[in-house]
């Protein structure tokens, strides 16, 4: 941009106006455009292989085989960013994620999906990638305004009782009452009666999470488990229980899932 500005100045008579305009423009859009530009270069070197040049998930490696427990092979597709739906958020069902949510995924990668970690990158570089990803769907511009409180991020504040035997016992009741086993199975192995017909929003079969595999794709922390059923995992069939459970019961459920994951 700087280079072309000087070229114009020397070449075009009366280009002062253009120069001013450009300058004003660069002041308005430059800080953000710069990071998204930077993000683009990084995207092309690190992400394009899977997510594709258009961000539609059709890179050279558009189908990743993923073997799960029951001898079944499930296909896994890199996220199609043009759809504008994201799985691991701290925002309620159907909402856009926060930049911080995306940054976390980009930094850590996604376990059991072949999506690599980018922990070697600086914060600015990761932010550049996040800004660039956001250019693939018009949703980021369309929904910039007030969402009337619908998309206010959830509060995640782990109480001290998580993991206590009483909390595990209460959580077991919540698990039953909320019928998590319909999809995740009695032992949480992902083999519930509804599991084999589950499909994601692009129509591909999807596994309900196997708790005995210990780590959720969105991360291993109790906070991340809490978020999974509070916000739901958009596009997968995993619904939000924000309206079905109070906060205490959701944390009791965390305790029970820790037990299912053999972490207690």
């Amino acid at each position: 941009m700087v280079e072309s500005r000087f070229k114009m100045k020397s070449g075009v008579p009366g280009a002062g106006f253009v120069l001013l305009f450009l300058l004003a423009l660069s002041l308005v859009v430059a800080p953000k455009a710069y990071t998204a530009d930077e993000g683009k270069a990084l995207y092309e070197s690190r992400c394009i292989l899977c997510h594709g040049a258009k961000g539609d998930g059709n890179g050279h490696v558009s189908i990743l085989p993923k073997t799960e427990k029951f001898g079944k092979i499930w296909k896994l597709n890199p996220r199609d960013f043009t759809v504008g739906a994201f799985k691991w958020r701290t925002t309620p069902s159907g909402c856009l994620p926060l930049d911080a949510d995306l940054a976390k995924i980009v930094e850590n990668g996604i376990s059991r999906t072949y999506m690599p970690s980018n922990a070697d990158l600086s914060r600015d570089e990761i932010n550049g990638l996040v800004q660039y990803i956001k250019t693939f769907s018009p949703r980021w511009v369309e929904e910039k305004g007030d969402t009337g409180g619908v998309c206010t991020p959830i509060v995640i504040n782990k109480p001290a009782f998580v993991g206590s035997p009483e909390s595990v016992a209460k959580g077991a009741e919540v698990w039953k009452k909320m019928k998590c086993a319909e999809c995740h199975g009695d032992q949480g192995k992902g083999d519930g009666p509804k599991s084999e017909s589950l499909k994601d929003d692009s129509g591909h079969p999807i596994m309900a999470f196997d708790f005995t595999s210990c780590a959720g794709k969105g991360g291993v922390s109790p906070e991340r488990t809490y978020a999974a059923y509070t916000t739901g995992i958009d596009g997968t069939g995993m619904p939000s229980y924000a309206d079905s459970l109070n906060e205490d019961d959701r944390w009791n459920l965390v305790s029970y899932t820790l037990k299912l994951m053999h972490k207690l």
Partner: protein
Amino acid sequence: MKKLLLFTMMVAIFIPAMLFAEAKYEVIDVKNGGSIKGKIKASAPIKDPVTEINKDQNYCGNSQASRTYILSSDLGVKNVLVAVEDIEKGKAAPKTDLILDNKKCEFEPLVGVAYVGQKYIIKNSDPIFHNTSLGVMLGEGKRRTVYNLALPNKDQAIEKPVRIAGMQSVKCDAHAWMRAYVYASKSPYAVVTDDKGNFEIKDIPPGKYKVKIWHEGFGEITKEVEVKSGQAAELDHTFSKK
């Protein structure tokens, strides 16, 4: 050269802005409005397919009517969505909520209109687990979650604001056969045909409009209609199965 440059820059700035700008709807007083009415028919009788049920048969049974083709004796088609699509001004949308019920292992209604700014009331009338997932249909089979809510217990109801406009499909992930369709509209000018395939859309400001006619099985067509003050524009359509 200068002009060209400026022009290119303007285009570069404004085109994306235009593409991304969300369609606005302005509420005005409609005094000399006209209406659109008509009948949607099928070219020949069609049998409504039977849906096989493979989960929770104790409660849901082994099969149910799919309700895709509900035709009257004169071939009028029920559950066709008729919506004035490109309307930017008109009456305020009614303040009615859309009740979406998980009932006897199917959604009721199958096709409904919701109004942006009002609410979805999502219910489970069954003694089994349901979840209700609404998603904008983006074309090419792509879908973007609007809400996906668990309704694990009988008589549970969840209210959510209607925020995102457009055609949405409704699924219950636990029961793959369950589906419904919701058109979330900013204007009041969207309706669903009755048992006889009839519909009427009233109080439309005079002008030329594009009207979308959509049916789950027959597909979609857009027709141009001119609405004149105090008159009813006739809009009939006959679908044939390809």
